[in-house]
């Protein structure tokens, strides 16, 4: 075997790192039973690859080579420590034995490891912010700096959050497992929440001036695809569909100057047809699997909008009927508000206003600016600018986001 040029090997190692490092990490965590140990082992393995592949050539199965090398490096590290500490010797023995042989890791068990990693990072015993940070770090391979930047926090605070989460996994002994069938619905829900939260953080930033931080949304879609491939449950498919259908409107939902554009005012020619086609296909599939839930239903509503060539052509009866089912599955004031807005499109503003007023009279959504904006819009359509103005002004005091505030200001200006 001839020696490979250094840059050729570097390129190959980089490529393998990009496509395989998360899989390899997931398997090393199972083999070594420890996140920190596995991360060190992963980096040691890639360092060894850089050295050895230039001498011996690239192995036929780089993934298996790296897993074996990583495990071996970890055992070496434990043995080194064991020389100073007798109690570590037994641990090294546990990992020993077959360590040197090039194990033949079948792809099924490797894919299971990826699922184990996802479920462990999204374990409900971890704090919600820790689940998000850990998932982006371990499953997606983002750096601590990248995550901190995306969530507008200090890297040191984020690093601390990740370290604390890993310590909890280790000390409380959170098992590296895919939950059993009876636990799956609840546990899967926690995973989907993390993915959708990451998506929304990218789709509408919670603070600051930029409305879209597409990197996070893209990451969430990638996670959704991975999960749909590993665990094709109806709601997993439904969430992926929902994200794709929302993502399809990304370019159309903000003006070049960063102003929000409502669905009804968007230039539908800008919608991404490929994402819509894929999203619609997934909605159909999820609905056909029966056990669908809130994500699938929201995706189904988004698909109805995607079908309309212009806002006026929207099949509002169909939108309302999906909201009816959604409200049964997931009764929440926000769903009720959205249903009211759709009903107003089907039956006229009076019907919608009655429902929104009932929600507010109950004391729900009083500080939710979209509720007041929606109410204002219906008063405007009824030809009562005074009432519309009062509601928009209420919404303006509640909106936090720069782009949202400017949107309401524009609506107010148009009333004049």
């Amino acid at each position, binding site marked *: 075997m001839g020696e490979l040029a250094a840059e050729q090997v570097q390129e190959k190692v980089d490529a393998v790192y990009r496509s395989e490092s998360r899989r390899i990490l997931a398997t090393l965590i199972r083999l070594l039973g420890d996140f920190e140990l596995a991360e060190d082992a992963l980096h040691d393995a890639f360092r060894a690859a850089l050295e050895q592949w230039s001498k011996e050539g690239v192995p036929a199965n780089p993934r298996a080579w790296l897993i074996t090398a990583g495990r071996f490096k970890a055992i070496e590290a434990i043995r080194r420590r064991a020389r100073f500490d007798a*109690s570590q010797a037994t641990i090294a023995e546990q990992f020993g034995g077959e360590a040197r042989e090039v194990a033949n890791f079948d792809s099924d068990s490797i894919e299971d490891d990826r699922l184990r990693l996802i479920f462990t990072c999204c374990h409900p*015993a971890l704090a919600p912010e820790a689940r998000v940070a850990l998932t982006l770090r371990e499953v997606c391979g983002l750096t601590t700096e990248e995550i901190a930047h995306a969530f507008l926090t200090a890297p040191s605070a984020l690093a601390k959050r990740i370290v604390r989460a890993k310590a909890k996994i280790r*000390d*409380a002994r*959170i*098992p590296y497992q895919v939950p059993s069938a009876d636990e799956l619905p609840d546990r899967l829900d926690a995973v989907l929440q993390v993915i959708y939260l990451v998506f929304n953080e990218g789709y509408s930033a919670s603070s600051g001036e930029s409305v879209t931080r597409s990197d996070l949304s893209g990451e969430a879609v990638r996670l959704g695809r991975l999960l749909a491939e590993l665990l094709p449950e109806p709601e997993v498919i439904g969430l992926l569909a929902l994200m794709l259908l929302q993502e399809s409107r990304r370019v159309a939902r903000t003006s070049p100057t960063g102003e929000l554009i409502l669905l009804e005012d968007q230039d539908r020619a800008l919608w991404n047809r490929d994402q819509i086609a894929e999203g619609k296909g997934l909605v159909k599939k999820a609905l056909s699997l029966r056990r669908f839930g809130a994500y699938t239903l929201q995706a189904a509503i988004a698909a109805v909008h995607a079908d309309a060539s212009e806002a006026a052509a929207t099949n509002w009866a169909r939108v309302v009927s999906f909201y009816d089912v959604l409200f049964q599955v997931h009764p929440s004031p926000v769903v009720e508000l959205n249903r009211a807005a759709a009903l107003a499109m089907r039956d006229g503003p009076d019907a919608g206003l009655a429902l929104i007023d009932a929600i507010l009279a109950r004391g729900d959504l009083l500080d939710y600016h979209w509720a007041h904006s929606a109410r204002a819009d219906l008063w405007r359509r009824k030809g009562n600018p005074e009432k519309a103005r009062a509601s928009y002004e209420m919404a303006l005091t509640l909106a936090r986001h720069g782009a949202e505030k400017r949107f309401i200001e524009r609506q107010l200006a148009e009333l004049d």
Partner: protein
Amino acid sequence: MKYICLGYYDETQWATMSESESNAVIDECFTYEDILRKNGHFASVEVCNPRNATTIRSRNGQVSITDGPYTETKEQLGAVLILEATDLNHAVQLMAKHPGVKYGSIFDIRPAGDMTEMIRESEQRRGGQS
């Protein structure tokens, strides 16, 4: 692995129950704890009087004694259970079926720290002195 389960309950809720009602709850809890014990998942349990806590700490080099508890919450610490479980999911599974949970008790599940190493090191230090 041992897990320490701290059981909290709302006293005011208990006060509204009749004696036969509260006895039924107690019997149900003890029945479940017997099952845990029989299966080897139950190391021990101690019940404590939530109204009777005395807090001690050092103040200016003196041990000060005050009326407790140290942390005041609406829910009172009523019991300490030591559970034997393979991992956190197992511990959660076992405690989720505890009847106290459905009657409103709240459990904090904490992994018991392994002090073997700490004790060994300490013994070495102390042995070295003598």
